[in-house]
């Protein structure tokens, strides 16, 4: 009896968890919103793809939990798991058609049911859901039993096609604008999504590339390793040059809307790099980081805006003041929290952030800061007559800022101060015992982070032309925190990846923007449980986080250079 029970146990359990998750996704409205965008025009939408991916994923997890691919049990569990998930959705449709759930759950609408049942009414619709669920399970089982390489090829090529469909707003204008390659755009896209032929060609292309890499990749890698040091450097330098050329030409390739997206991503990269120093290098969780962003913006506003009427400096004249005041406040807000650790530090800094927000919003400071209406008419930056007005031009300003900040971050990381920060992050008491002056080190971390944030704030004020207190709330601090955590704490490429993913994506996918924080929250929790070092981790941090495991296994593996 126990044998048969444990046979479908994993399938049912995973299926139930998956069912609840899929229900939540549907009832929150994500499926309906995503349904508006086609992946393959007229064939399948993003909403349907989301559900299918969910179904297959649940089946796969159920299979994995059951055992190895020797027996039939995993496959059975995969089918059971996905079917149970489908069952949950079917149940929703049945109940929803009988009772009006909409009074409570605003998204439990007939539209949703129509979507789920592919437009079929009555019993046929229910059957369709269950059938699709089972189909996902069968597909998941197939994936489970296939050899590893084939599985990876299939997953990656299908994912590439889906990503191409999702990012069509990014890819289409870029390809279409470039004469010789414009034809490709016609071939790939039409109306709201990919063409059928386009999608198939992407799948085949990626599959071929991946198989080729799998077979030939080792040869290429060893070939590269066999080159002399000089040639290797040569290749690295030329790659760097190509990257620089691409970065400089980007706004002209991408057009107006995408350049605007780039400037926002760039600002968040600046902010992220600053917080990266406080959280990533020094290990202090600062939840009030938006306060320095506000200070930078407001100082710029006060010093340059004729509306507030105190001073009329130019952007470049006001910038040093903004940064210096940011650093000053960084130190000021850092002093009280010197003795605090971990949770207390986080909440205290959150308190500071909120205090600053309330102050700039209040009537008390309105004569100086503009109160709830904020302050406008901030002049744009200009160098010798060249004004930074359009998004493309502002992009260069932000790019300059980013390069400066990346440079400073890199140099700090390898410096004595950087190592002191990382020692402090790992264990404060031991660091102090080793002779590190905790007060100075912590204050320097706060000051540097605040300085970067103020710089970003000044650029933001100039770009927007005005400052409103409502732009400086705790959600921004959380956003920045999310993108460093997801990208990888302490890792500079990680911050850039995080910003592109967490800030760029919602801008590109308007449907996604409403569920932004929902996904951020889920992503944070998932990342912390599964991969706390982030997507592009910093080597030392990864070692710290997995130190426990290494100790248990025995000799730690030799680490590769950063």
């Amino acid at each position, binding site marked *: 009896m126990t044998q048969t029970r444990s046979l479908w146990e994993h399938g049912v359990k995973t299926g139930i968890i998956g069912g609840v998750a899929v229900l939540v996704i549907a009832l929150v409205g994500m499926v309906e919103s995503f349904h508006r965008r086609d992946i393959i025009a007229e064939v399948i939408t993003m909403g349907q793809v989301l559900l299918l991916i969910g179904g297959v994923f649940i089946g796969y997890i159920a299979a994995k939990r059951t055992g190895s691919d020797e027996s039939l049990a995993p496959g059975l569990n995969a089918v059971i798991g996905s079917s149970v998930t489908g069952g949950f959705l079917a149940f929703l449709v049945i109940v929803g058609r009988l009772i009006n759930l909409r009074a409570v759950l605003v998204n439990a609408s007939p539209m949703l049911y129509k979507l789920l049942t592919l437009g079929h009414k009555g019993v046929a619709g229910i059957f369709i859901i269950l059938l699709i669920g089972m189909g996902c399970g069968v597909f998941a089982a197939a994936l489970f039993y296939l050899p590893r390489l084939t599985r990876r090829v299939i997953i990656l090529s299908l994912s590439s096609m889906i990503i191409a469909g999702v990012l069509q707003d990014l890819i289409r204008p870029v390809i279409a604008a470039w004469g010789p390659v414009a034809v490709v755009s016609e071939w790939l896209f039409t109306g709201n999504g990919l063409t059928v032929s386009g999608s198939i060609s992407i799948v085949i292309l990626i599959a071929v590339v991946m198989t080729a890499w799998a077979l030939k990749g080792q040869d290429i890698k060893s070939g590269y390793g066999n080159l002399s040091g000089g040639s290797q450097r040569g290749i690295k330098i030329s790659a760097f040059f190509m990257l620089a050329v691409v970065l400089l030409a980007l706004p002209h390739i991408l057009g107006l809307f995408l350049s605007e997206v780039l400037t926002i991503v760039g600002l968040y990269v600046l902010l992220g790099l600053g917080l990266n120093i406080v959280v990533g290098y020094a290990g202090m969780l600062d939840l009030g980081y938006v306060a320095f962003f506000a200070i930078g913006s407001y100082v710029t506003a006060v010093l340059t805006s004729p509306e507030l009427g105190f001073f009329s400096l130019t952007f470049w004249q006001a910038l040093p003041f903004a940064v210096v005041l940011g650093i000053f406040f960084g130190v000021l807000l850092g002093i*009280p929290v010197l003795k605090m650790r971990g949770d*207390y530090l986080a909440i205290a800094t959150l308190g500071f952030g909120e205090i600053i927000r309330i102050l700039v919003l209040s009537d008390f400071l309105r004569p100086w800061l503009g109160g709830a209406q904020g302050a406008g008419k901030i002049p744009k930056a200009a160098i010798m007559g060249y004004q930074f007005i359009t998004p493309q031009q502002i992009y260069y300003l932000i790019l300059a800022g980013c390069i400066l900040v990346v440079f400073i971050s890199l140099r700090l990381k390898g410096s004595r101060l950087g190592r002191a920060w990382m020692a402090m992050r790992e264990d404060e008491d031991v660091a102090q015992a080793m002779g590190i002056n905790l007060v100075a080190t912590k204050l320097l971390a706060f000051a540097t982070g605040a300085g970067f944030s103020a710089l970003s704030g000044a650029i933001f004020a100039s770009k927007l032309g005005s400052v409103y207190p409502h732009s400086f709330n705790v959600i921004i601090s959380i956003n920045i925190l999310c993108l460093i955590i997801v990208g990888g704490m302490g890792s500079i490429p990680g911050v850039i990846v995080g910003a592109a993913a967490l800030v760029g994506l919602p801008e590109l996918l308007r449907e996604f923007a409403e569920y932004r924080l929902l996904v951020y929250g889920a992503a944070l929790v998932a990342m912390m449980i599964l991969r706390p070092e982030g997507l592009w981790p910093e080597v030392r941090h990864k070692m710290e986080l997995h130190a426990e495991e290494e100790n248990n296994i025995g000799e730690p593996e030799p680490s590769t250079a950063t």
Partner: protein
Amino acid sequence: MEGIMFQRWKESITPTDIVMWLIGGTLLLMVIWGSVATLVAGKYTGRHWIDFVIFGLAQGSIYALIATGYTMVYGVLRMINFAHGEVFMSGPYTAYFVAAAMYRSDFLDKHPFTALFVIFVVAMAISTMIAYFLEKIAYRPLRGAPRLIPLITAIGASFFLQYMFRGLYGSGFQAYPVIKIFEGAWVIFGIRILKFQLVVIVAAILLMAALYSFIMLTRAGKAIRAVSEDKEASSLMGINVDGMISTTFIIGGMAAGAAGVLYALMFKQVHFFMGFIPGIKAFTAAVLGGIGNIPGAMLGGIFLGLIESVGPSLFLDGLGIPAPYQLKDAIAFTMLVLVLIFRPMGIMGERLAAKKA
């Protein structure tokens, strides 16, 4: 002996301490100045002050109930359950639909006490469920992780829950139905109290008494206290640590759900973001009273409620600040920072906080 101790103390002061004392002293001076100015100017009558105090007591008791959740979880897990504000929100928001249905069918007016009981039960059940699953899914896998990780997870869980409820129930402000028998005021010993305020205070006192007796008198309560003191020793003594931690979350969830209904009765509306600021304030209250100390959390909550209510009129007005009520939250946050700087172990002084701070 005295000489040596004084010398040691002199050596242990750093410049940072002096800066902090200066800042603390200045703030204290400002508070006293403002208070004196207001009282001398006589802008508010005794009746006003009494109104402020009662409002503060009511609001404070709500904070106290939420704070017990924070303090208990900190006691057993040594982490701030950032998502507790969302546990607080989920109960009343779900119960709103029940309340609205009862209002529409006139059940609310005809059987107000039964209706209220049902609302409480629904809210507490939902909050408890959210708290239980929160612990099981987000916190249990991270039991031994370095401090930063569970904290970030809690932040993520908090936002996930907020926006999940936003997606499920909608983003609007939902007005709680008015319960007619609680409208109006009573006059007790010459003091005029609004009926629902008295109800809130009395309900909160009853709930806190129940919670306190649970912790002090029952076996489960003793086990929870044991786990918060020493997890390993407790498990060696045969206590089911995981079960006790779940129980802690459940109790905290029930208290938060009840607090949520009281909050909804008092402010007459619910929305998905309503848990965030009360959550932080309740944490402030827990720290004020001494984190890990349950009577301390209750005292801290009431104290914070009073300061928040009386403060703006008392000292901010005297300092000549226009529209002092806008800065009400700032007072609470400033209190938080001051307590964390100057007395992290809180009023009742728990050993716990001293180790961690």
